[in-house]
């Protein structure tokens, strides 16, 4: 399913020699757009830092402060170390979700490759954090409390851990892609005012999905941080 109307459609031709088809090319170029947008925004916001913030700096401080508070609430004080990664993921996903509500823009998270990349980052970082924190004893996380049940628990735990990136990927992708498809169908049926309630729900879905992704990332990292029981 290729988006019918996009502002940056001409990039599809530029990516043609790399054998990247329509929808993937859109996702790539809108990911770059989101990255540039966030980069420019943070550069402007931190250009002239003041003790008493105003304007953009104030807004960005509120955003960062809210995310930090959520991390401390969920993970405790030692969660502060993972703030940069989680906040980056959260803001990137939120902006990519919201950009899809502007007509002519494609949410990069409505492509399965973008969401899979985000989910793999979370998946790999949980295990890296676990190994860094516990060393070889991280294996205990997979063995369960009873030693003679360990061989069975091990495989169940492995399946459980592998299903995490799959569910993270599919949840975000399904929500955003489903929303995008519904909007497309509504625009095709009646382009005037009818898609508006759906777009309102899209705002809600964007915020909730970004929040859920962030929350699950925090919970997974927290799970590999704590001692095995």
């Amino acid at each position, binding site marked *: 399913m290729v988006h019918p109307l996009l502002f940056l459609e001409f990039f599809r031709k530029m990516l043609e020699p790399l054998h990247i088809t329509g929808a993937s090319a859109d996702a790539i170029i809108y990911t770059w757009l989101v990255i540039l947008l966030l980069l420019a925004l943070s550069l402007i916001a931190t250009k002239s830092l003041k003790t008493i913030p105003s304007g953009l700096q104030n807004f960005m401080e509120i955003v960062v402060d809210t995310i930090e508070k959520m991390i401390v609430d969920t993970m405790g004080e030692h969660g502060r170390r993972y703030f940069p990664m989680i906040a980056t993921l959260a803001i990137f996903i939120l902006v990519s979700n919201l950009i899809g509500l502007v007509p002519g823009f494609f949410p990069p998270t409505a492509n399965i490759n973008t969401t899979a990349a985000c989910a793999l980052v979370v998946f790999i970082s949980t295990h890296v954090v676990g190994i860094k924190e516990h060393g070889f004893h991280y294996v205990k996380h997979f063995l369960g409390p009873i030693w003679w049940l360990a061989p069975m628990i091990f495989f169940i735990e492995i399946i459980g851990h592998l299903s995490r990136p799959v569910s993270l990927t599919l*949840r975000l992708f*399904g929500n955003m892609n*489903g929303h995008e498809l519904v909007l497309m169908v509504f625009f095709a049926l009646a382009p005037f005012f009818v898609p508006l309630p759906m777009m309102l729900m899209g705002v809600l879905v964007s915020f909730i999905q970004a929040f859920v992704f962030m929350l699950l990332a925090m919970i997974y990292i927290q799970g590999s941080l704590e001692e095995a029981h």
Partner: protein
Amino acid sequence: MDFFSMCVFAAGIGMGLGAIGTGIGQGFAVKGAVEGVARNPSASGKILTTMMIGLAMIESLAIYALVICLIILFANPYKDIALELAKAAAK
């Protein structure tokens, strides 16, 4: 019935069945959360967060159904085989 109308039927019925279970499950979850908030309004923040995680987990079931339906509709792996069979039947 030919292959493609079967696909459309499968997608529609599958998504409907997926939505039933998820709807019931989410209804129970929200019921519990609302009761909790009604009894102890000061705990609403924590209940909201927990409910959101739970709802997202339950919702992913419907999302799996949606993804399967989208695969059936837009990226069907058996499309080429079905088209070849239809061509062979037409001959």
